[in-house]
């Protein structure tokens, strides 16, 4: 091993990866995308405690989420995929109604759950494609979150009589199914590609890690809200009753709850 290490040579250190990547070596830190109080999609830049909203890109957003590399957006009549620059990657006509999104680990593919038709649509990196869906009987309850743990599997988080159930289904309709109750977990709920579950309890946001450990982030929570993924380690909290928007940092060791600006200069 020692001799092998000795053979490693770091031959060059560059500040600019411009030849290999589309991004400059030094750039404003991008925090992802947010849905503002006018239901418009806006890029967000900055750091924890220092947020800058970019210009409005599109309006009439019903739901949106961003993985760090791609985003999904639902308007009243369309499902849209976009890249980190906000560029349209693909779209599909869909029925009006809310949508819930989940990204695969790596963030390049995603699932959208369309509540109106109880329909799953997969973004496969270049186009939308319908996904098979569990039978309605096993789907009793209200879907409050979804996860995309592997390319062949979907997890539905279903609320049944105040209890959240985690239901795992194969996307191709073949394979094992499982379900378990998640005690102490409440809606609104967000499942991140890391396996983290984000939910609220009195006065705090709870980050339940994949290993079942929990981190509580003290937060002045609004009465009713939704959670949407902003980036790999950022979640947006949208207050239904006001213009207030919040950002939750979920990265281990850097957890925090912040308010997003309502206006940009």
């Amino acid at each position, binding site marked *: 091993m020692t001799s092998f290490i000795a*053979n*490693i040579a770091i031959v060059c*250190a560059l500040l600019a990866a411009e030849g290999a990547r589309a991004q400059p070596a030094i750039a404003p*830190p991008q925090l992802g995308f947010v849905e503002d109080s006018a239901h418009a999609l806006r890029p967000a830049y900055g750091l924890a*405690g*220092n947020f*800058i909203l970019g210009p409005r890109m599109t309006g009439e957003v019903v739901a949106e989420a961003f993985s760090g590399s791609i985003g999904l957006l639902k308007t009243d009549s369309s499902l849209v995929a976009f890249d980190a620059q906000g560029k349209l990657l693909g779209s599909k006509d869909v029925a009006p109604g809310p949508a819930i999104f989940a990204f695969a680990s790596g963030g390049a593919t995603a699932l959208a759950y369309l509540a109106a038709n109880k329909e799953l649509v997969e973004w496969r990196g270049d186009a939308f494609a319908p996904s098979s869906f569990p039978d309605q009987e096993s789907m009793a309850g209200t879907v409050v979150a979804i996860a995309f743990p592997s390319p062949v599997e979907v997890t539905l988080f279903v609320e049944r009589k105040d209890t959240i159930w985690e239901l795992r289904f194969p996307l191709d309709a073949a394979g094992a199914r499982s379900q378990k109750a998640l005690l102490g977990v409440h809606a609104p709920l967000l499942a991140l590609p890391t396996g983290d579950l984000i939910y609220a309890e009195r006065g705090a946001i709870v980050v339940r890690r994949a290993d079942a450990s929990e981190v509580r982030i003290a937060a002045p929570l609004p009465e009713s809200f939704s959670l949407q993924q902003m980036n790999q380690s950022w979640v947006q909290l949208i207050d239904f009753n006001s213009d207030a928007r919040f950002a939750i940092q979920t*990265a281990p060791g850097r957890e925090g709850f912040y308010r997003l600006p309502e206006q940009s*200069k």
Partner: protein
Amino acid sequence: MISRALLFFTLIPLSGFAQIQVFTLNGSTLTAVGSSLSFGTAAPGDTIEIQFRVQSASRKDVPLTVKLSSDGAFVIQCLAAPYVPPDAESAFCVDFSPTAAGSFTATLAVNAIDISLTGTAVAGAAVTLSGSTTPLSYGATINFGSVTTGQTQSETFIFSNSSNASLTVNSVTVSGAGFSGPTGVAFPLTIGPGQQPSFQVAFTPQSGTPYQGTLTIDGRVFNLTGQGLDPPLPTATIDFASNVGASAQQNSITIPLSSASQGSATGTLTMAFQPSVAGVTDDPAVQFLSGPFRMATVSIAPGDTAATIGGQSSIQFQTGTTAGTITFTLTMEDNPPQQATLTIPPAPIDINTATAVRELGALNVAFSGFDNTYSASQLAFTFYDLKGKALSQGEFNVNAGPQFQKYFSSTQAGGAFALLANFMVSGDTSQVGSVTAQITNSLGTTTAQQIPITN
């Protein structure tokens, strides 16, 4: 011939008479006058004056003649111009000044329009304002002065009967918002010769505005006026949740009052930022987190012990990523502005996130953070094997000053930055376990220790 001439002189003026209309003017209100007009009730010695306006819709001057046939109680006090200009008006006034009790009549002729004037004089008790020796005349104005809202100013009115017989005052009424009374006596009130009963009228304004009312004594009308004054605001201060100034912080402001407010007020809280970094004029991330960018409305209601800011008890703001001074200015109506400052001192670079990723033939080290001095320069990277031993190549140093200066001169992100360093590697990158990154600015060096390298 004579009859034809009379007809001529009668018809010509009539063509003009038909083009005028007579109004009374009360304050700014014009009221068309019919065939009769009452001057109301006065006491002997009072004068009731009514203002008249004569309007014409003609495109030419209309001759105007005003005549009064009176028994002496009525008199034209101010004369009208002999013409009513086109699309304009002419003014005159008539006084009713009875010298004794009784009913009085007169006929006012305005061109061909005859108006019957009536007025009544009632022998009544004289009314004097306390502190004065002069009886109030009809229409006199009693000014209660400027009174703080919620406070009460009372005036005492004194009846006097200088006759040899008793007089009766049947009713006294007070009207108008802010005015109340009378108190002190009950009506009807019999006043014997030489007696001087009194009553009070109170003025209690509820806002800092002018007030008007009337005092009516057996039909005799007196005007009441007063000015409401907003009470002085208690001292308001600008309090920060944290007085420690630092970049990339979310802080909040409250505005407590030195005591419960007796009045209401509105104003603004503005924030301004003066960077201490040479050549930098602003940092757009320095802003309020709710409402407009750097301005919030402030309001105080009676009973408040703290102002509301943008409708809330506090307002959050963020401090940006540039060293400098944030100045908050509180401006409340009729009060001198108050200021509070929060100094954001220059600091070493803050690394917010740091990651390292292994790729085929390369290692990418990325971190985000901020440099509130805009002086970032030297980067240093040290790679370690899986056991944590530094690789033999030692420290890689990169002078990134020019790139940082170029970035800071064009970005709208203040001192915030994300940096990506790419290292080309020959050999098995899986044997490189971690990297330590250092970045230096004018305040010192910041180190991100042993960033694990992931796939």
